[in-house]
């Protein structure tokens, strides 16, 4: 019995293969976008994990000098008092045209590094003397092999896939040479096995601080907000994709009512029918899910390089540009497809199981009722209020996203009610009968179209919101770059001595030389970069302060106060008048807060004298040069020739700005890509909804036709109806999008990156988006309208026949 029933049910899809395609595409799109985001996230996380595994970051305590580096003799002091610690020296190193992170570990004290273990188990394990004595070896991941090709000036390389990308692991003896930091140690890792009795750290090296893993910020934590952002987008796309599934399944079930009635009349039990239908849905979900995984993998592979650039630019977190296929990802993708499909078709399935044996496939068979609309509006309101309550009671990034989700879905659920009220008003004001009919008909169609319109609303609001955020950010960022990058040339000397020589030579020839000196402090609030500046009008006139005391510059440059960046200010709630402890015995008053985009870490600025006092030993290799812009090119060349500097060591202001902007643009590539995809999915949802409504249209249109309206006129009105609904939705999406933008700029950004951005409005973008929406709605309505135009009059006449 089951065989013929299955055959009968499946025959529907043979006749409606376009519907089947729509259903599968809907599932595939929903799964695909979601999976793409997940693939990107897991790839990034695995890169972080490999980086962290190199030194068990997050598991072992570390010892740091809050004011800078630890000397070799301090390390020996600690070892000779029994402390089992391993020395690590790390820093950026330039190889070719790339900057890589170099980590030098005392391989004798800490030999169990994953990459090292992997090499020892290889067929050709390295000799200890190769690793430990000059020239040493550089361990790199396979992606860097080309970069080191033919570099005879560097130690030979060893390749290990256990290493993160853009990362060099080596012995500390090699690292201090490559980094030119002889006798310096960045941090000491406290090894797991310690002797029974140890003298306290404060007795041996009082200036050093022990940090437990919880107070260390690792890359995964830093980038959590970024990945949460991506996940939110993925979820939005998933939801929009489900609207398509819902629409198609609803339509298919409505169209199969007749068949189901017949089957039941033939004695097939409802239970059996429901099970078979369920099995059918699961099969479609799996097929669509696999398709979605393919799409997701392709999208992720296309976007990953840009995401890698973003993460590196924003957080200095290196991510592999290569995408690996993980089994967990496949399983979870299929589970999402299955869960999503069942969620989207649960309603239809439930209604199927409740269908009375002799029910007719009535006119209102699939449409919603006033009750449903009221319920939807009420839950919408509840969601908005719930979101607000969560945010104001919990704060934080996740609470921000919950509020965002609440407001978005809540408004979407309110949409049918709002549109219904608006259309009712239009009906009352309409003059002629045709106009009145068009508005009333539109209102009657609302239940069937509302899901598609909700999807459109969400996509549009997301577009406006995210677009406004990105554009506001870009505008602010460009202005900030102009303020920050004021020197005409930026120079990096090969060492401190050469820097001194260059500065001496330059001083009489240029307006000013501005040293750029900084040192990383292990601050109680996380890593803190302390900068020293000299007194110059460049700072006094241009520096982008967002809050300050009166006479801020005098108090910093002459009075020993400190400026901090916005990230630190917001994270620690420190503002002008508060004080900041930079190091033991160095607590300074905060005189001002400056905006600082492009990194999430804390930063502080003090006078040069104070920098040397708080943290002696900051390198002074970098400086900016002020001179008249037309001399800049010539001066850059002179400097390169005279001091034998590579091209990359003397950089023009313009080039610097271009680089920064390029990183910025890359940052939002994935955001815009997801935006466009979401809008596409929404357009598709409208199409499926209109097709769904098609069968129910004839009974409504036939009477109008019989009253004398031509088919082509009806088709035009069909097109107009779709465009008008989309236009109305777009008008409602604008305020929602602006609310979204405001939340992104003032709430999410502050939580995720630590800066608040002023909101700028871009009406031209809105108009473009509005027109795009109308176009999408028109395109979606073309097929139904064209069908209406070509429908044989006999079909319309049949509406009046008694066989219905």
């Amino acid at each position, binding site marked *: 019995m089951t065989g013929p029933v299955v055959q009968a049910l499946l025959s529907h899809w043979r006749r409606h293969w376009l519907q089947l395609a729509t259903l599968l595409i809907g599932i595939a799109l929903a799964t695909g976008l979601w999976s793409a985001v997940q693939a990107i996230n897991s790839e990034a996380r695995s890169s972080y994990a490999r980086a962290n595994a190199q030194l068990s970051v997050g598991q072992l305590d570390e010892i740091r000098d809050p004011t800078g580096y630890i000397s070799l003799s301090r390390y020996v002091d600690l070892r000779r008092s029994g402390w089992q610690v391993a020395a690590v020296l790390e820093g950026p190193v330039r190889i070719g045209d790339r900057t890589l992170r170099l980590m030098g570990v005392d391989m004798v004290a800490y030999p169990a590094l994953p990459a090292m273990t992997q090499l020892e188990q290889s067929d050709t394990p390295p000799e200890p003397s190769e690793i430990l004595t000059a020239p040493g070896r550089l361990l790199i991941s396979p992606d860097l092999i080309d970069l080191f090709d033919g570099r005879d000036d560097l130690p030979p390389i060893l390749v290990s896939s256990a290493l993160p990308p853009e990362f060099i692991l080596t012995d*500390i003896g090699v690292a201090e040479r490559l980094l030119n930091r002889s006798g310096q140690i960045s941090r000491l890792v406290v090894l797991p096995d310690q002797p029974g009795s140890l003298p306290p750290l404060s007795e041996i090296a009082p200036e050093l601080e022990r940090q437990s893993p919880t107070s260390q910020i690792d890359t995964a934590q830093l980038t959590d907000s970024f990945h949460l952002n991506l996940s939110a987008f993925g979820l939005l796309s998933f939801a929009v994709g489900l609207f398509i599934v819902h629409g198609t399944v609803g339509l298919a079930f409505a169209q199969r009512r007749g068949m189901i009635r017949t089957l039941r009349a033939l004695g097939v039990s409802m239970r059996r029918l429901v099970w078979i239908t369920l099995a059918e849905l699961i099969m479609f979900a799996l097929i669509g899910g696999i398709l979605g995984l393919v799409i997701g993998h392709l999208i992720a592979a296309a976007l990953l390089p840009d995401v890698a650039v973003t993460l590196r630019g924003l957080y200095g977190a290196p991510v592999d540009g290569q995408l690996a296929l993980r089994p967990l990802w496949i399983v979870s993708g299929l589970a999402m497809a299955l869960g999503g499909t069942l969620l989207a078709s649960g309603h239809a399935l439930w209604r199927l199981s409740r269908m009375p044996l002799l029910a007719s496939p009535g006119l209102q068979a699939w449409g919603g009722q006033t009750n449903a609309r009221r319920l939807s509006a009420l839950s919408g309101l509840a969601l908005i209020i719930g979101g607000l309550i969560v945010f104001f009671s919990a704060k934080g990034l996740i609470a921000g996203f919950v509020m965002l989700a609440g407001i978005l879905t809540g408004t979407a659920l309110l949409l049918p009610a709002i549109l219904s009220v608006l259309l009712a008003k239009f009906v009352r004001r309409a003059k002629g009968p045709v106009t009145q009919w068009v508005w009333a008909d539109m209102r009657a169609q609302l239940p069937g179209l509302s899901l598609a319109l909700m999807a459109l609303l969400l996509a549009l609001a997301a577009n406006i919101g995210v677009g406004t955020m990105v554009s506001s950010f870009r505008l602010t960022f460009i202005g900030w770059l102009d303020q920050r990058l004021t020197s005409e040339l930026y120079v990096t000397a090969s060492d401190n001595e050469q820097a001194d020589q260059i500065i001496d030579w330059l001083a009489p020839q240029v307006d000013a030389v501005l040293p750029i000196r900084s040192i990383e402090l292990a601050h109680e609030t996380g890593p803190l970069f302390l900068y020293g500046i000299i007194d110059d009008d460049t700072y006094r006139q241009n520096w982008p302060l967002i809050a300050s005391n009166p006479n801020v510059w005098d108090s910093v440059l002459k009075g020993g106060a400190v400026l901090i960046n916005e990230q630190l200010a917001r994270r620690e709630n420190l503002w002008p008048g508060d004080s900041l402890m930079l190091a033991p015995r160095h607590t300074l008053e905060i005189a001002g807060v400056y905006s600082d985009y492009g990194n999430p870490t804390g930063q502080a600025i003090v006078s040069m004298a104070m920098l040397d006092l708080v943290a002696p030993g900051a390198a002074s290799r970098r400086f900016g040069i002020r001179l008249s812009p037309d001399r800049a090119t010539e001066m850059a060349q002179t400097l390169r020739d005279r001091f034998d500097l590579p091209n990359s060591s003397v950089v023009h202001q313009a080039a610097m700005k271009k680089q920064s902007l390029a990183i910025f643009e890359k940052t939002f590539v994935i955001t815009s890509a997801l935006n466009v995809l979401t809008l596409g999915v929404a357009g598709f949802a409208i199409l499926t909804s209109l097709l769904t409504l098609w069968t129910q249209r004839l009974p409504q249109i036939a009477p109008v036709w019989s009253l004398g309206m031509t088919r082509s006129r009806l088709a035009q009105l069909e097109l107009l109806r779709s465009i008008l609904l989309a236009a109305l939705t777009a008008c409602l999406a604008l305020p929602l999008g602006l609310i979204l933008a405001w939340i992104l700029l003032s709430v999410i950004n502050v939580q995720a990156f630590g800066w608040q951005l002023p909101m700028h409005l871009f009406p031209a973008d809105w108009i473009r988006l509005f027109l795009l929406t109308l176009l999408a709605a028109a395109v979606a309505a073309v097929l139904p309208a064209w069908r209406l135009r070509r429908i044989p009059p006999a079909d319309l006449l049949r509406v009046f026949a008694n066989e219905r």
Partner: protein
Amino acid sequence: MFLLFPLAALAQGYAGLGGNADGFTAPTPGYQFQFPQDHGPHPDYRIEWWYLTANLKGEDGRDYGIQWTLFRSALRPSEEDGWQSPQLWLGHAAVTMPDAHYFAERLSRGGIGQAGVTAQPFEAWIDEWQMKADPDINALRLTANGAEFSYDLSLDAVGPLVFHGEDGYSVKSADGQASYYYSQPGYQVEGVLHLPQGDVAVAGQGWLDREWSSQPLAADQSGWDWFSLSFDDGQKLMAFRLRGDRGDYTSATWIDANGVGTALPDGAVSFTPLETQIVADRNVPVHWRVVLPDRELDVEVSALTPKSWMGTRFAYWEGPVFVSGSHSGQGYLEMTGY
């Protein structure tokens, strides 16, 4: 763990490495020892050790044994300042008692001051472990520190240094592999052991071995059994057996009550395992018969505890033993390559 490779040399020999390969100096007969310089390191030789063991009696009446060893292993025959020094240092320390054996290990490189040996004034150290002259090598202060134990002992030498083999040139195989090898077998030891069960004051006898070479074992030799025995009548015996595919190679030094040593040739002493036990998944002989007909010595040597396994980067058995039979006494046994 790649450091295992150079250190494995200590346990398994440098199969196939010629004496002067890689520029290391090889021991030659007729070497004139210079003191105190020769108490210090010889970086142009591949390996070297300062090896102290002691049999102790606690105030609680129990038997204890301690080990303190500093190994030097050179990647190249030179010394340099800084991280890239080719000299590696390895410390082993242990406390053994009838029901427990605690050990600890330290690893360091030379060149940065974390580990090393100075001859004048004599000091050998790695991390906080020390073997320090007070004021010369005849009076030492010895400290070590592990997760479960630590000790602080003072040592006073009774009697002269003893040179093994041919005036300190100790042959290790029929092929002529050899090392420089001398001992101070007569330290009086006293001090305190800090153990999980509390502090114990101890006193007893210690034995210091000094040995350096570039080619300790022949290609076919898989390990050794090394005995240092002190008899109740004041006489002592150092004897070892190197196990090889081509047969064993033995060597020994008989030390009379005045501390005068007599070298005994290959084959003079015979060693017979009487009983093995499974220790760390290996079959280790912990009960021996040692016979030296020349001195009418026929004794059984048994471990204080079979647990004396040094589960360090290269693992071996090292622990206190008791002697009974024609002579009675105590001593230390080291077995590698099991």
